[in-house]
């Protein structure tokens, strides 16, 4: 029997869905473990345990495998004591357990030099830069995007220039931003802003254009003015899609963070990562990178969950955690509207939303 999975757009059982979700994380980790713990997979280096008669080797030194055997061959030719070592990976690929240890101890390990920030201080700094850049961009970008999408004249006036500007790489404005705004956080926020804003306007105006024109016509025949059409039809009509766009855009903002933080005085998580690389503490470099990923993933999950609370019309029967919590605090379970079949004899359609 052919597996159902090969059929395009095949549905997934909840169980398969969960398993595959887990596998998408487990498979890369297993691959990493294999590379780290199985000596025959890669291990191009040798970690010296006993230098023997090789003058320049010290215990713990990582030596290229070819150089190691060449050196030992030479020592053997002089009938000296050969060096002993175990196969190892390069220093820039730490094993999973080292990275996990670095993750766990990351927040309790003081910085190498007292004037350097702690890991949590670095992360907090980065989050603030992202927050302000994204917030400022959204305050202008979301209303502008909605207007551009809703009013063709507005879109025509604004979008061609934005279309041009969005191809200018945000980091290219680094030097300019520093010249105008100094070397502290302002130019970094500006880079996040530039990187986000122009995409945001275009993405949101495109989303807004997808509103069903029949809804606008229906509202017009109900006496809606033009202002009402925008505030009470267009905005609520596209808000859920825009919310999804914003989640994607927030991910883009994070990618601009690393460049932004190199501008002026290097700071935040980028500075932290660079410092750890200088100290050759690559397990902490990896730990920091994984932390960024985790923050992104958790933020997105929280936003997705929050979205289900904010937009109750997307939900079917199941109540979300937020309304369940509110119901609990009020000491009552808010009854969800449970439509039954009616005089039509037609069963209500349940629109399943992913």
């Amino acid at each position, binding site marked *: 029997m052919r597996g159902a999975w090969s059929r395009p757009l095949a549905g997934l059982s909840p169980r398969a869905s969960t398993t595959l979700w887990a596998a998408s994380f487990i498979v890369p980790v297993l691959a990493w473990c294999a590379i780290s713990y199985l000596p025959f997979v890669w291990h191009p280096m040798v970690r010296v345990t006993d230098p023997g008669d090789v003058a320049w080797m010290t215990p713990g030194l990582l030596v290229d495998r070819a150089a190691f055997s060449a050196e030992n061959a030479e020592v053997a030719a002089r009938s000296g004591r050969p060096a002993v070592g175990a196969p190892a990976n390069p220093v820039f690929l730490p094993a999973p357990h080292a990275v996990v240890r670095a993750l766990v101890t990351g927040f309790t390990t003081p910085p190498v030099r007292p004037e350097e920030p702690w890991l949590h201080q670095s992360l907090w700094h980065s989050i603030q830069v992202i927050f302000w850049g994204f917030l400022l961009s959204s305050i202008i970008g979301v209303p502008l995007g909605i207007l551009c999408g809703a009013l063709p004249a507005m879109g025509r006036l604004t979008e061609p220039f934005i279309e041009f500007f969005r191809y200018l790489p945000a980091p290219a404005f680094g030097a300019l931003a520093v010249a105008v705004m100094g070397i502290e956080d302002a130019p970094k926020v500006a880079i996040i802003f530039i990187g986000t804003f122009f995409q945001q306007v275009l993405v949101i105006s495109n989303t807004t254009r997808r509103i*069903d024109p*029949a*809804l606008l*016509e*229906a*509202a*017009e*025949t*109900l*006496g*809606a*003015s033009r202002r*009402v059409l925008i505030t*009470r*039809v267009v905005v*609520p*009509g596209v*808000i859920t899609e825009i919310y999804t766009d914003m989640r994607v855009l927030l991910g883009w903002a994070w990618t601009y963070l690393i460049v932004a933080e190199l501008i002026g005085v290097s700071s935040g998580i980028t500075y932290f990562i660079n410092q750890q690389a200088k100290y050759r503490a690559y397990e902490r470099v990896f730990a920091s990178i994984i932390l960024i990923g985790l923050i992104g993933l958790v933020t997105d999950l929280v936003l997705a969950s929050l979205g289900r609370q904010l*937009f*109750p*019309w997307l939900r*079917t029967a199941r109540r979300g955690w937020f309304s369940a919590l509110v119901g609990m605090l009020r000491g009552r379970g808010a009854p969800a*509207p449970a*439509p039954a*079949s*009616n*005089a*039509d*004899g*037609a*069963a*209500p*359609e*349940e*629109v399943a939303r992913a």
Partner: protein
Amino acid sequence: MSVAASSHLEQAPEVRARFDRLKQRPVILEVRDLSKTFTAAGRPPTHALQRVSFQLHKRELTCVIGPSGCGKSTLARLVAGLEEPTGGEMLLDGKPIHGPGSDRGMVFQSYTLFPWLTVLKNVMFGLEVSGAASSAEAQGQAKMWLELVGLSKFASAYPHQLSGGMKQRVAIARALANRPRMLLMDEPFGALDAQTRCQMQSYLLQIWKQVDITIMFITHDLDEAVYLADRILVLDAHPGRLREVMEVAVPRPRGPDQFLEPTFISARRHLEDLIHPRAAQVADKLPLFHMADAGDNVE
């Protein structure tokens, strides 16, 4: 073209009396020489409507019927103010129509309930945006309209939880809640299955009986038109012209059992003679192929 016995013109005395009374009522909508031509660059212009004139009297239920492309939807959109005519004029209570307004409610074929509002809030929408009623008043009125269409139980449901027929009943309640002068219905039951459509037609007649409303109902379904209408405007396609205004001799109150009555059948037959011969000719234009087994003639 076989012309049926002209019995569709024969009216029972009480039907004739009813039409006489109807014509005495004030004119709600007057359409004079209405034309709409669509022009697109590089294409010949499409005459969707050409010099169409008619009057709708108060509380009349008029159906507009015609082959596809005859501009019947365009007619509804023009009266609703969603399109600008290229010629002629439309008067509502003697005043010219410019743009959409809450004095003309509309029910569309596609479902146009606002998905983010509950059923009750959907019905309240028009009252709220016009500021005609306070929020509490609007809620009270909306509940009354929901009761009229039999959906009080679903006031707090969202549209996606309703069946197609229920959605259209809410749409009718939403349009009526504004107390419009007339209701435009653009193939409102076209997307529903046959049984639900039949139920909806009965619902509509029931509602129309209880509410002071003039209805212009666009349809391509001949049975639907005969079942619902006082008068039927028959449109021609390419160009869209008013071919005939037919008074339906089927007595009221109407019911599904009348589908087999002679008045119903003759009215239906007459419409069919007006509309279908052209539609059926299309198949004769197909080239002839013999791909079936000779011994297996389906006829």
